């Protein structure tokens, strides 16, 4: 069982986009307790955007132009600092793709959990994007898989289920996705036949098909 590791933010750099206020001071103080260095800037300064690991942004006064990316395309986790719960402000925060939030007035309580949740949500969202991209690619290649299956049916004189089982088995053997395998062998009946013979030899094919 994997140990439930203690989240650690030692060495992180944070940017606080909030006008100078006790909220921002409390946040900076708590961040330093967590080993995070922070820099505070007012909400309007968008130039020379520093390289940081996380951004705390004042949702009450936030505008799209403060970020060097389009809304919703942040390349690092964002944490919203919420005073007003007006739906318009919440909509702005959601459009930015905040990964977690802290309610104002900020106290020492809540910063560690906001960082932990933000990191988790951001990483998971990035992973989801990668997974979605891969799945979309595979969906696009459906016709290729179909064509390859049909070609194998013809070459080996087998039905569609058997042909698909051979393709899946070969993909597993070669540690490729079914789509990748089909892209490599489709429309090349000589190679497909060769591959099928190899599979037949290695896997006692006749028994497997039954």
């Amino acid at each position, binding site marked *: 069982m994997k140990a*439930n*590791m*203690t989240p650690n933010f030692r060495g992180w750099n944070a940017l606080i986009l909030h006008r100078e206020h006790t909220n921002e001071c409390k946040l900076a103080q708590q961040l*330093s307790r*967590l080993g995070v260095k922070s820099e505070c800037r007012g909400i309007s300064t968008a130039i020379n955007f520093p390289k940081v690991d996380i951004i705390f942004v004042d949702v009450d006064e936030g505008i799209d132009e403060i970020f060097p990316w389009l809304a919703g395309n942040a390349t690092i986790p964002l944490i919203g600092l919420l005073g007003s719960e007006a739906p318009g402000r919440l909509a702005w925060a959601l459009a930015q793709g905040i990964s977690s939030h802290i309610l104002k007035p900020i106290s*020492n309580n809540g910063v560690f959990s906001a960082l932990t949740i933000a990191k988790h949500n951001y990483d998971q969202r990035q992973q989801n994007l990668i997974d979605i991209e891969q799945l979309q690619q595979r969906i696009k290649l459906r016709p290729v898989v179909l064509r390859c299956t049909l070609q194998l049916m013809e070459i080996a004189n087998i039905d569609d289920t058997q042909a698909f089982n051979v393709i899946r088995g070969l993909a597993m053997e070669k540690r490729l996705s079914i789509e990748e395998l089909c892209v490599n062998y489709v429309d090349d009946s000589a190679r497909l036949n060769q591959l099928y013979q190899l599979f037949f030899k290695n896997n006692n094919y006749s028994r497997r098909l039954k």
Partner: protein
Amino acid sequence: MTNLKIGLLFSTTGTYQAMGNDALNGVLLGIHEINKNADLALQIQPHIENPGGSIEQYLKMTDMMLKHHHIQHIFGTITSIARKEVLPVVEKHDGLLWYLSPYEGFECSENVVYYGACPNQHIVPLFEYILPKYGNKAHLIGTNYIWGWETNRIARELVMACGGEVLSEKYYAFEEYEFSRQIAEIIQKKPDFILNNLVGSSSYAFLKTLDKAALKYPQLRRSNLPVVSCNMTECEVNNIGHSAQGLYTTASYFQDLQTKENNKLKQLATDYFGHSISISSGFATGFSSVLMLAEAVIGNGASEPDQVKKYLANHSFKTPLGQLTLDPKTNHFPLTPYISQVNQGLPLVIEHTVKQAIADPYLVNFNAHEFAIKIANGRRKILSDSYLKVIK
């Protein structure tokens, strides 16, 4: 003459009454020390409440102390559930909670003076001592709330960091006394040691059941299967009797400490209570925190929590726990972790002392890799010190 009213919020009845009484007695002795000194321009008046271990009572009593009695300084709460319950009210009224017990960390309130040890001052040094000596297959047991959960989670992380294994992890309600299934599991899984994070009477029952089973199963004897703890203190060891024998525990104070300040404390306690009493870390922290508060109030001429905290951070105090200054970054004290063992009827004899450690409540500076190296080096040293050596 300044008259300072302070709130004392300790459960002196209920399942963890031994710890509550111990800390309360320490605070009362501290108050007595201040009040008997006619030269001081300060008198402390205690307002004592006993929540009896009931969470609702903790909240109600804290509210009353802050709102109706206008008390700014509250000493107390033993468990983390109680502390978490009263904390929002203390913060709302800008009071100061003097928290004296070891706890699981991951907290840093401006309205608390943390005088108890946090994980880098208890479980980490305890495991640095225990793992090389006994091995890294652990059996974790605890009371079913944040202290047990979080301390055992850190324990799991430490054990895993050095390639060890957690063979079992079980939690029990505060007043659970039935442990026979747990003992059967221990016999079956054969851990190298047991980490006991049970609290109060339930913990004593577990040790007694284990001891009884050891009559039939010698592998359960304390000498073969050590039981270690981060929250067992002198005041409880006496209640447990023979079953406490061999128990390892860590704290930042033990009665066994041979220092001038501690000898003075023991003498004062004997004079005050009329007989020699068992003193634990709760007693020592309770006593010395009152003295620190008094010094700060006299020095500042004011008792506002912020000013008191500033004073604590700018002055050094000679206490039975050593020379201490509050760390303003975390509102915790740097503490010296000691590891003790109940030995031959003597309660908790110090076996090992670690360098004073600055509190790191969020374990920011903990490094699993360095921890693993320390354990491996410790193991190597124990093997090389052994009489039996492998010669190629």
